[in-house]
């Protein structure tokens, strides 16, 4: 199948929406576990339903077919014919995984059904074949619906319209509609086999085609449900000279004879009903038939149409044996699930979203309020600019000076706000990252046979999309570690006098220009002695190395360090913590551990809010100004001569509190003529990266300010010691120091020179 670009874009929207739908399903399923409500199931059902519909539309039969079984089970849960069991939820969660896999396959252009899907599919079928266990004890509408009393295994459908009798407008061979791609689900009782005559009046909006809807396709789909007669009305068609071929000027009356429910009809028109007028009417055929012969188009269908399969639905059928009730008598909405589809909001239409879709994998979905804020600000900016422009036309220095000042103040504020707003577009709430943890914690705690309560706090805290993406994996590592090594088994917890349920808390909040993320558990805490012993055994530290508490904890970030007694498949391979720290350092953040034996531990990650902006400290060396990230600065000191030491004639050390820090002369590294080469005349900036501290010698500290980070390598290349550049208010360029690379470069150099000296 060749897909043109536009189609690819629309399909891409389907993938995006499927991802979101799957996330929603997962979240909903997890919430079902701890007390559910009807709304949660509805949400899950709706998500499944849209995925199924989309998959069917775009020809991903496997997804559509698989999702149908999921939907069937959900539907039974929703209308109360089946209780929500932990088992079923587990299978549904696995089904979500399988669907995710299938969507991924489809996205890669190799749609198919992985083995896992088959396994899950079998379990789903098994559950569906079990006798239903009505959810009378649950909180949502119980057995008051007739369907609830219905036998779970209805007789096979007898309805099979005579293909020869199908009338349809001419067209290509019918594409298998979504509903027809689902042959095996056990259908629920309906007015099976009963021929009903539906009259549908379809008055599409003129923009029908713009939303990528094709009446022909819908009619083909209708024709697959029964015998269809279509009557087109041409009164709305303008004169040939005025006709716009991209607009729909026709309207139709469709007569459909077949064993069809209103829901099925509604489903076909699901995508269009927001901008078109559609009425469904059941016609009593004993009355004289409508005269459609005059201009109805009746043509034999060109290809065999898939036999209709009736969607399972909760339509009240048993009680009215054999006769579909007149529409107005169809009872309350909660009995007719697809009713919601009838009034589906316009956002259900993928076509309307399609043109905005971004094919780029690094696209970003932005809240409309952020864009609105930008639009407002730009408006403000334009006003200020015109105010200044008017002012410039007739300047009267004395009187107008105040006006000018006011204008400039406005301009400054608007510009600053505009910049902030633009940067906010990149910001997303951390819930995007936190959302995966309920599932993860649930599965892991089961595997580890621990009882864990996960608490998520500060989920709405926003951070840069890039930071968000890169912090995900480190967080997973930390959470796994906490579950595996931190929290104890229920027995051990009771023995320690704690509640058998461990608490794992993920917390995010803003502090200054940073975001802090905490992974906190109330487990056993870190065992200092064990860490030390392990580090010595691995030869990571000298036997007699005096280490502070913090330094001991930091040992767990060394490559190859793991204290897990047994390597489990959860954690304990000694890869992870070093990667965690490297990832965090790469993002310009740092990680800190605090722990109390028997009470638990907290890992605190501090990250810059964004990679586009830096809280910078300007500093000067000779004629050059540099920017250093405030996050990496511990403090700045005016060195006292008695705190300076020289070792072996090469390394200069500065005694900072109880530590000796190597002095890094920026002017030497960068070959700049400084104000003074005497350390005592300069300032020492104590900076840290990766647990290593150095004292950087500079001439002067200047202002602190937020700077926008610009890449040096876009037009040039990466320069060792520099993280990028920024542009000053006056338009000149200032370079941003890369503290980690400076430190590692410097220590490599001193090691080399010490080596030479030896």
């Amino acid at each position, binding site marked *: 199948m060749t897909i043109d670009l536009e189609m690819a874009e629309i399909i891409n929207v389907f993938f995006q929406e499927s991802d979101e739908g799957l996330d929603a399903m997962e979240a909903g399923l997890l919430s079902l576990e701890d007390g559910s409500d009807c709304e949660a199931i509805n949400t899950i059902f709706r998500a499944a339903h849209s995925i199924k519909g989309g998959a069917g539309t775009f020809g991903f039969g496997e997804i559509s077919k698989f999702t149908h079984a999921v939907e069937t089970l959900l539907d039974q849960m929703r209308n109360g014919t089946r209780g929500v069991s932990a088992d079923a939820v587990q299978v549904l969660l696995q089904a979500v995984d399988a669907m995710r896999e299938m969507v991924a396959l489809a996205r890669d252009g190799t749609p198919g059904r992985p083995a896992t899907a088959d396994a899950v599919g079998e379990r789903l079928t098994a559950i569906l074949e079990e006798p239903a266990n009505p959810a009378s004890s649950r909180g949502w509408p119980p057995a008051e619906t007739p369907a609830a009393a219905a036998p779970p295994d209805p007789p096979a459908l007898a309805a099979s319209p005579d293909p020869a009798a199908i009338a349809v407008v001419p067209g290509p061979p019918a594409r298998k509609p979504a509903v027809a791609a689902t042959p095996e689900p056990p259908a629920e009782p309906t007015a099976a086999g009963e021929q009903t005559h539906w009259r549908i009046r379809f008055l599409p909006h003129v923009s029908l085609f713009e939303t990528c809807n094709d009446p022909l396709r819908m009619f083909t789909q209708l024709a697959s449900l029964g015998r269809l007669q279509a009557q087109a009305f041409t009164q709305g068609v303008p004169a040939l000279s005025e006709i716009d071929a991209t607009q729909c000027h026709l309207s139709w009356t469709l007569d459909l004879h077949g064993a069809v429910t209103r829901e099925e009809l509604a489903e076909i028109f699901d995508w269009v009903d927001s901008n078109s007028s559609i009425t469904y009417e059941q016609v009593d055929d004993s009355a004289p038939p409508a005269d459609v012969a005059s201009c109805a188009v009746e043509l034999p269908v060109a290809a065999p149409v898939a036999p209709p399969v009736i969607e399972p639905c909760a339509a009240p059928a048993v009680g009215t044996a054999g006769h579909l009730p007149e529409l107005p008598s169809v009872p309350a909405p909660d009995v007719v699930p697809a009713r919601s589809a009838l009034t589906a909001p316009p956002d259900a239409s993928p076509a309307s979203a399609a043109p905005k879709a971004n094919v780029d994998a690094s696209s970003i979905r932005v809240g409309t309020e952020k864009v609105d804020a930008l639009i407002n600000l730009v408006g403000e900016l334009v006003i200020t600019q015109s105010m200044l422009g008017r002012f410039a036309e007739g300047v009267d220095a004395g009187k107008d000076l105040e006006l000018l000042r006011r204008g400039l103040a406005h301009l400054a504020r608007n510009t600053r706000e505009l910049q902030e707003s633009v940067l906010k577009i990149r910001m997303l709430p951390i819930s995007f990252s936190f959302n995966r943890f309920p599932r993860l914690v649930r599965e892991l705690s089961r595997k580890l046979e621990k009882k864990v309560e996960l608490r998520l706090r500060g989920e709405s805290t926003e951070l840069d999309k890039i930071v968000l993406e890169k912090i995900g994996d480190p967080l997973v590592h930390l959470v796994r570690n906490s579950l595996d090594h931190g929290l104890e088994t229920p027995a051990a917890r009771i023995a320690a006098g704690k509640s058998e349920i461990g608490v794992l808390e993920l917390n995010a909040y803003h502090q200054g220009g940073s975001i802090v993320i905490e992974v906190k558990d109330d487990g056993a805490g870190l065992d200092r002695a064990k860490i030390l012993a392990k580090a010595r055994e691995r030869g990571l530290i000298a036997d007699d190395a005096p280490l502070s508490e913090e330094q001991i904890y930091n040992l767990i970030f060394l490559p190859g360090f793991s204290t897990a007694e047994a390597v489990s498949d959860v954690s304990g391979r000694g890869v992870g913590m070093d990667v965690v720290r490297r990832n965090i350092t790469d993002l310009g953040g740092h990680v800190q551990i605090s722990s109390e034996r028997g009470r638990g531990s907290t890992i605190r990650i501090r990250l810059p809010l964004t990679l586009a902006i830096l809280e910078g400290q300007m500093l000067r060396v000779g004629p050059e100004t540099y920017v250093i990230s405030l996050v990496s600065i511990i403090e700045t000191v005016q060195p006292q001569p008695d705190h300076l030491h020289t070792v072996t004639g090469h390394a200069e050390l500065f005694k900072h509190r109880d530590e000796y820090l190597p002095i890094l002369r920026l002017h030497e590294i960068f070959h700049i003529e400084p104000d003074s080469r005497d350390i005592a005349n300069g300032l020492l900036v104590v900076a840290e990266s990766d647990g290593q501290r150095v004292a950087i010698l500079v001439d002067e500290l200047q202002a602190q300010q937020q700077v926008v980070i610009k890449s040096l390598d876009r*037009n040039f290349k990466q320069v060792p010691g520099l993280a990028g550049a920024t542009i000053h208010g006056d338009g000149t*360029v200032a370079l941003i120091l890369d503290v980690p690379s400076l430190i590692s470069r410097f220590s490599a150099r001193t090691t080399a020179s010490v080596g030479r000296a030896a």
Partner: protein
Amino acid sequence: MSKVKAAAEEAKKQYVSFMLAGEQHGVDVVRVQEIKGWDLVTRVPSTPTYVLGVINLRGAIVPVIDLRIRFRLERAPYGSTTVVVVVRVPGERGERTVGLVVDAVNSVHDIAPSAIRPPPALPGTVDHAFIEGIAVVGGKLMLLLDVQALVTASIEEG
């Protein structure tokens, strides 16, 4: 070489000519983005001396290369005619924008490909590898620079 291509090549190419230590040089006009006056640059440490530093070109950080230093010519003070020829060349990550400091720009000349000679081995002057060819324009010799090779080598060498 196909006929079509050969025919197309006979169409004249345009070169921006500039002066460097008294010699006339040319750069393919399609490579030239703009020409701007000399302005202060921010020095970048750990780079070759011919990389004068970086400038802010409407929000982008653009390196500036002094062609006199690059070609080991005698250095001259930057004056009122000193200009930066901003060129764009394909780089590792899309197009790269780089400024080249020259003594002065002259004008744009049409040169037929047939009028371009392969570069002779010139003693002492511009590196051979960066010369696309030579042509005679207005009775004077013009060295046509291969900016892409020049820029790529200059940035990657350092």
